[in-house]
């Protein structure tokens, strides 16, 4: 667990818990977590694999600019894990290539 509970400057309030699904498995997150934060807390840092060389990719800029952290969320590909808040019951999956809905021949 990588969650910060105590901090010398920041007041870190306790937040409610929720369950989402990561590659089909139930996983716990806190209310208000981004998908990237929830996965990072659980030690998961590979969010997708590239289209041609199947290289692992994960978080890079964390502010929605670089789009390196995109995942398949509730069946929709290319969702930025760093700026999308996780919700109860949300289905989050590792994105392989361009995502299942995309034209793989691109």
């Amino acid at each position, binding site marked *: 667990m990588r969650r910060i509970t105590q901090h010398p400057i920041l007041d870190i309030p306790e937040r409610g818990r929720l369950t989402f699904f990561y590659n089909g498995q139930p996983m716990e997150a806190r209310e208000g977590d*981004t998908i990237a934060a929830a996965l*990072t807390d659980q030690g998961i840092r590979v969010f997708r694999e590239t289209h041609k060389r199947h290289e692992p990719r994960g*978080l890079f*800029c964390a502010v929605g600019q670089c789009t390196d952290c995109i995942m398949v969320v509730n069946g929709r590909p290319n969702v930025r894990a760093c700026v999308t808040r996780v919700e109860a019951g949300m289905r989050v999956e590792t994105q392989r290539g361009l995502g299942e809905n995309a034209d793989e021949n691109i």
Partner: protein
Amino acid sequence: MKTYDVIVVGAGPAGLGAAIESGKAGASVLLADENDQPGGQLFKQIHKFFGSHDHYAGTRGFQIGQQLLEEAARAHVEIRLSTRVWGIFEDGTVSACTEDESFRCRGTWLILATGATENSLVFPGNTLPGVITAGAAQTMVNLRHVRPGSRAVVVGSGNVGLIVSYQLLQAGMDVAAILEAAPQVTGYAVHAGKVRRAGVPVLCSHTVLEARGERELEEVVVAQVDGQFRLIPGTEEVIQADTLCISVGLTPRWELAALCGCKMDFCGPLGGRLPLHSETLETTCPHVLVAGDLSGIEEASTALDEGRLAGVHAAAALGLLSTAESAEREREIQSRIAALRQGAFGRKRQTSKEQIWSRYHQHQGGGL
């Protein structure tokens, strides 16, 4: 189509400053931001700011952010979040979209405060999960309250690299080393002192050669460079780390300004490509102003005051402030900005800004 006196793009310190000043003067203001929270990067700044009382010295970034949001509410600024401005047309029409809808609106004045993007570095392994920007590490620990890893190497000893290193320690991470390609630390001595006292080695004349790991970052290969930044063979060293933070400067987010048709320029010390602008933040496009990191990379305090200056300029042009009122307000803000551009670090920015202003006036005087 809804019409506003002023549309501000970007709700960081510059955009908030602009929206507050024009709103306070009585302008109807729309402040749009693509993020789901306002404040830009202010809320992840947990260190105390420097300078005088006028520059919020001794106040932490997130507290300044809170004060600005209250000021914006008092100035009746309409803030639209999760709203991305993607188009600006010659007649002042602005196209924006949210997750669910696309809409258009029109602004008599447009103030662009789109901020900056962190620069990356090219080296083998730079795409491995675990290699992130320093800002990303800061976002994770200070806003998301999750550590991106357990042991970090930081590349770059500018203020961002130094401050983020210290904040990673505060979050409970180890910082194995800070690498700096230059022969000396490039950030403020006070920040460097803090990380050194905490036991973090700052390795000058060092750079990253490679990031290694099977599926994620496991180790970083570093090496020494000479005065011309050439690798010194035989100095390679391996540092175990699961996080590599890149902190090698920022580039203005100039896309919307270029889309507007603003004449662009290049200035290395201010971050590279940026829109040509005047002392009062006018661009070569009538009714389009810029402020903050978009008009040259500086600090949050400077961005805020540049935004305020742009807001005053727009309010005066709209006839909401008398010439005397706006002149006094502009003098006051400009003297604060001038104070921020003093000293060994500030002077370079001041000189660079003067070059941009002078090129702006040349361009305008030359009748295109």
